[in-house]
């Protein structure tokens, strides 16, 4: 289309009975650009911090397969994406100046021909959410690493996942994914992220604890080099180092690497090993066997088992059974349904380890309980049960 001239603009002003003296001299003649109707442009409303990230040159990524709700990820955060409709028409105009900008630049062009790049009646809205990390463990559990002697790896038909694979499959930011890999003690074997098969992991751990015992090393000062030397003939060195990193805190002393063994984590793992063999155990029998099974110098405590096992105080005798929070649903409502299906009434102390991970930024366990549960008193103790009848 032909560009409007100053004369045409002035004529329009006159027809409209607007006084040019009351207007800034510059005018924008708006027309629709060649791509405007294409629908290729869309608007994303930015949460605090994201604008600065984009201006710093960092990327945002949309993640999610066709059957998943899309999420948007910055380098370290994850957001749910929803489409918000407005009843108005939103036009996006490059090169359009505000009055401040025009006043700041008196020499600015008299006629600015601006092309509207696109328009929309809706935009994408973001809401910060928990990264969807349950799938990460699920993928890695498809093929846990059973050690170099395992026949499985050679004949395995399961997918193995590199960092890039995980980034494209998991609805979470890169930092959240890498952090979670550390939390679940995953390790990289031949470029692929692997989780250790639990039995293999316990085998590695017992090599180390037996060596600590036979060498009479203090639990707080286990030397890496000696471990690699003594155990290197039994297991790959990378695996020995990995188990020390998983169950110990690494530090340097006079240039050498040592590990302070993590009592709570070791006791917890041994409890899992014992508990996974039956549906439930007599509590006092379990506590006795458990204490005898942990390394010399370590003390077992029930609070080491939060989120791993649950004590039934109502049965006679009292019992304990395995209940791992990572096996429970990721969605809030489904998690609560599942917990209330296992036990009708929960004290806050008992349920907290099983809902702690659901808390959004700045949300408390109390707030979750208020939303998803109903409270009542039982024998003088506050308990929580489902808001709806459990079938």
């Amino acid at each position, binding site marked *: 289309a032909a560009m409007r001239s100053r004369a045409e603009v002035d004529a329009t002003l006159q027809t409209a009975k607007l006084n040019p003296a*009351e207007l800034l001299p510059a005018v924008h003649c708006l027309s629709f*650009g060649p791509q405007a109707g294409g629908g290729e*442009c869309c608007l994303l409303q*930015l949460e605090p911090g994201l604008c600065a990230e984009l201006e*710093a040159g960092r990327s945002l990524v949309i993640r999610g397969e066709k059957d998943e709700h899309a999420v948007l990820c910055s380098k370290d955060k994850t957001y749910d994406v929803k*489409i918000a409709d*407005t009843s108005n028409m939103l036009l996006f105009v490059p090169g359009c100046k505000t*009055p401040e900008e025009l006043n700041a630049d008196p020499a600015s062009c008299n006629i600015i021909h*601006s092309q509207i790049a696109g328009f929309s009646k809706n935009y994408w809205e973001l809401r910060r959410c928990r990264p969807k990390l349950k799938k990460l463990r699920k993928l890695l559990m498809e093929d846990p690493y059973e050690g170099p002697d395992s026949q499985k790896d050679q004949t395995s038909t399961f997918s193995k996942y590199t960092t890039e694979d995980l980034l494209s499959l998991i609805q979470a930011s890169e930092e959240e994914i890498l952090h979670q890999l550390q939390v679940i003690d995953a390790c990289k074997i031949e470029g692929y992220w692997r989780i250790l098969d639990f039995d293999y992991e316990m085998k590695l751990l017992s090599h180390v604890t037996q060596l600590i015992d036979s060498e009479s090393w203090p639990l707080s000062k286990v030397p890496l080099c000696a471990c690699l030397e003594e155990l290197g003939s039994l297991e790959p060195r990378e695996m020995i180092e990995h188990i020390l990193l998983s169950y110990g805190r690494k530090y340097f002393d006079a240039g050498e690497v040592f590990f302070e063994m993590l009592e709570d984590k070791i006791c917890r793992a041994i409890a899992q090993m014992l508990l996974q063999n039956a549906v439930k155990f007599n509590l006092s029998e379990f506590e006795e066997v458990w204490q005898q099974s942990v390394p010399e110098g370590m003390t077992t405590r029930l609070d080491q088992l939060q989120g791993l096992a649950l004590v039934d105080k109502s049965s006679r005798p009292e019992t304990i059974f395995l209940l791992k929070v990572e096996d429970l649903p990721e969605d809030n409502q489904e998690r609560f349904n599942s917990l209330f299906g296992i036990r009708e009434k929960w004290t806050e102390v008992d349920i907290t380890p099983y809902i702690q991970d659901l808390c959004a930024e700045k949300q408390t366990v109390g707030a979750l309980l208020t939303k998803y549960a109903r409270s009542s008193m039982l024998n003088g103790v506050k308990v929580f049960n489902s808001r709806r009848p459990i079938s």
Partner: protein
Amino acid sequence: SGGTGALAQWVLVELQGEVQPRQSGDLAGSLLGDLHYTCEGIPVLIVGHHILYGKVVQLEKPFAVLVKQGGAPQPSSAGPHGHYTVTALIKTKLLFKTRPKPIITHVPKKV
């Protein structure tokens, strides 16, 4: 993704209702109207036979303009899947909410 160099700053113009081309055929290339500002900084938009008065709003939550990458549009009903590039940021909008004032004309002045 962001790009090399600073991101362009665009402006959002928010209008009530629909925008329709005067002639049949699509919008591309057709004129929308003239945008003026009063000396006090009030945006005035002349669209067809209407005058719209608006205001300049600094957005609390800026927008990013995303352009879809790749050729054929994907038939994803579930929403925003695919690869996108951030083309520009929008921190300001011109909001036109008042009812358009029709321009009563007799004979348009010949130029």
